[in-house]
């Protein structure tokens, strides 16, 4: 009886306060006309982090500078458009926003959405998010299935943490709708159809594997759903002229040649052997590497392949060992990579350098390969500049899930969610009652307009074909059981 009474009382109070509350807290946003700050010309050897530290006492504030600067630069030709925050140079003219703006940015607010009274026209359709309703973003990755679930669950956690960090969007809660696509074409199309059938899904973070992204992308394309994949690196994913397929990782065509260049020029090696694990990722990467390496004049003395799930790598190592390569380039993931690296010594190849890519650049690789991990190289997104942000993220990750990230793509998933959320701010129209109208094509255009966004995985700048993860490829090396920059 008493409980009922209390419930009634509370409800009455809430109802009474509702109008007050609604007026007191307008949807969080930064109006377009309030972009203010001072125009500043960069001095020699001055970086954005330095500027951020000096102006706002926070290194992490530099993405806010890029964000507001790039927004203003569209209207003000005097300003320099920053496509890569790590490559600004002396004489660049930038806008340093006010401290309030930076604070708002760091709290997850963005410019927009535009005000309006009616839903915009959009050839791909408009998502209407009523007052108080959540903005629903789909997420598709393999959450079960041997060998791939680790990668998928890791991505899911990255995406979840992005929502934890930015729980609201223009006054609406953000909801991640998670689906398991098993990394197969079958699962990919099933999930795609599920999302496409649900008109409240605004956009999709995914899919994880190229093998499910590619079949799914046809369905999203037909339905006009924007997809942003955190980890589909196959060249074919964005090479088919689709309008709605985007990714925040790079394509194998970027990472492979970058690694080849590093091996040829920086390490000065001429004879390499390649191994891939039979995954579309590994195979595509190794091919891109080998082609670039040969084009530079190097020699690929052996091209081998193993299978995901193989454990005994001694036979394949013995086999390529007779060709006396100076370096083994491996396209694949942590497990097989660690087997290869650690079994080198067993066949007398401990002096052959081992190099992998972002698929092996994880804590688990060092743990699994043990002492043999020393001196292993890996190409991966440049984390040097975003360091503090990444560390905070990793601390949160460990606190939330009780373990360190077991796989490499959590950062990309985090970034994919953020790119979509920013694009929604830029493309949506908000009605007077808080209703959000999101035009699907406008959203996709906004995603593709992403420029110089400093994500955790690197700088994200979208190309016209949907390749956004063009951030710098950085080489890392294991020294004393830690991944450190190789240069």
């Amino acid at each position, binding site marked *: 009886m008493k409980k009922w009474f209390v419930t009634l009382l509370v409800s009455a109070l809430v109802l009474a306060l509702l109008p007050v509350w609604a007026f007191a807290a307008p949807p969080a946003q930064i109006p377009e006309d309030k972009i203010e700050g001072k125009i500043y010309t960069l001095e020699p050897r001055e970086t954005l982090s330095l500027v951020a530290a000096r102006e706002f006492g926070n290194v992490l504030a530099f993405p806010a500078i890029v964000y507001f600067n790039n927004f203003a630069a569209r209207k003000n030709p005097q300003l320099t458009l920053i496509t890569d925050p790590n490559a600004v140079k002396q004489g660049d003219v930038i806008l340093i926003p006010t401290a309030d703006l930076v604070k708002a940015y760091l709290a997850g607010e963005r410019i927009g959405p535009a005000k309006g009274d009616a839903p915009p026209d959009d050839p791909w359709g408009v998502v209407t998010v009523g007052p108080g309703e959540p903005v629903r973003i789909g997420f598709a990755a393999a959450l079960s299935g041997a060998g791939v679930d680790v990668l998928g669950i890791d991505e899911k956690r990255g995406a979840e943490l992005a929502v934890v960090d930015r729980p609201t969007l223009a006054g609406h809660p953000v909801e991640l709708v998670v689906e398991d696509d098993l990394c197969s074409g079958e699962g990919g199309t099933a999930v795609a159809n599920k999302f496409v059938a649900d008109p409240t899904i605004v956009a999709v973070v995914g899919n994880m594997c190229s093998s499910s992204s590619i079949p799914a992308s046809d369905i999203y394309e037909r339905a006009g759903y924007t997809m942003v994949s955190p980890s589909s690196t196959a060249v074919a994913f964005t090479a088919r002229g689709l309008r709605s397929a985007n990714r925040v990782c790079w394509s194998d065509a970027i990472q492979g040649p970058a690694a080849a260049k590093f091996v040829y020029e920086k390490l000065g090696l001429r004879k390499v052997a390649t191994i891939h694990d039979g995954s579309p990722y590994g195979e595509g990467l190794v091919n891109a590497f080998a082609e670039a390496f040969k084009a530079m004049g190097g020699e690929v003395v052996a091209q*081998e392949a193993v*299978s995901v799930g193989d454990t005994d790598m*001694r*036979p*394949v190592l013995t086999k390529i060992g007779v060709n006396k390569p100076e370096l083994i380039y491996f396209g694949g993931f942590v*497990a097989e990579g*660690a*087997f290869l690296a650690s079994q080198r010594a*067993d*066949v007398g190849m401990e002096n052959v350098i081992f190099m992998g890519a972002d698929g092996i650049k994880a804590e688990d690789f060092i743990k699994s390969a043990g002492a043999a991990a020393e001196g292993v190289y890996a190409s991966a997104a440049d984390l040097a500049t975003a360091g503090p942000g990444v560390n905070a993220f990793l601390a949160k990750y460990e606190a939330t899930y009780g373990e360190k990230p077991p796989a490499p793509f959590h950062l990309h998933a985090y970034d994919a969610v953020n790119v979509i959320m920013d694009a929604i701010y830029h493309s949506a129209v908000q009605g007077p009652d808080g209703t959000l109208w999101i035009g699907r094509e406008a959203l996709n255009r906004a995603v593709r307009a992403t420029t110089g966004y400093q994500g955790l995985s690197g700088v994200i700048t979208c190309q016209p074909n949907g390749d956004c993860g063009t951030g710098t490829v950085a080489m890392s090396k294991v020294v004393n059981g830690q991944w450190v920059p190789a240069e």
Partner: protein
Amino acid sequence: MAVVSREARVSRAPAVKLSLNRIMLWVVGLGVTALVVWRIAGTAALGLYGPDVWLMQTLNGLVQGSMYALVALGYTMVYGILLMINFAHGEIFMIGAMSGYFVLNGFHQSGFLASNPVPALLITFIVGMGVPPIVGVLLERIAYRPLRRAPRLVPLICAIGASFFLQQAVRLLFGIRTKVYPTVAVLSGSWTITVGEREMRIQHMSVLIIVITIVLMVALYLLVRKTKIGKAMRAVAEDKEAAALMGIDVDQVIMVTFAIGAILAGAAGVMWGLWYKQVIHTVGFIPGIKAFTAAVLGGIGNIPGAMLGGLFLGFVEAIAPTALDISTQLKDVISFGLLVIVLIFRPSGILGEVLTGKKA
């Protein structure tokens, strides 16, 4: 017991009508064999690989094969008695590897492993070989025993279900992350020997694995041949009804069989962990399939056959890509192709006929 009698006819003389077909198959089989020999000769003539390479690959194969063989024994013993494929046996192996990890990692973190490596390893083996039989016997009691008289496919599907269940249970309990066995200093050394002009390294651990495997196999042989329970096992494998009439507790014998198979798989699991370091909930799947292949290769239901089949399979997997000079990626094609060839010549496996012949 229609099921058993139907199975018991396996090795009856093939009918006349099939003989033409049989000749064809022999031709095909011999052709493939000739091709293989020719490729090996070609590789040898190339002279690319010295004797050290061949020796190395042989050793690799024997180590891998030892572990296959230990797991295959579990398949084959259960098959010999129940005529069922215990599809979940790979997961039993995985549970052995996992239990071993938790013990050894605990010792590693507490420093006990560094100070007393031998007792630490012994306890690891004891636990790694002690947990799987508990799971195995429970599995038999809950999932297989009620189905002993069901049509053959029913226990197979049940075993497949149990395999998924165990794998996922471990994943959900202990997490998705790869577990890495700590490095054991006493086991990580190697001997360097000179073969021809080249030096090669033989790791202590590889020898240890082979020795442990041989010890376990001898123990199993003695158990089956010389003890009372071994006799009972053989009797039950021959004829359950008759064995029951002779006063043998069939249920108990089956339980012991499951337990022994699980102990061997657990030992293989711990050795797998020590040798390959990485252990994850799916680690049992591929060795399980391979060991099953090995058991069939040797003649399923036949204990020496499983030992031989395991070693042979491991050996072929390691050496064939080099010998035939084809991509390592295709090693599964080779091992399954080998299986087909062997079965063309000997439809019940390398040593299969002995047992089924007795049964018929």
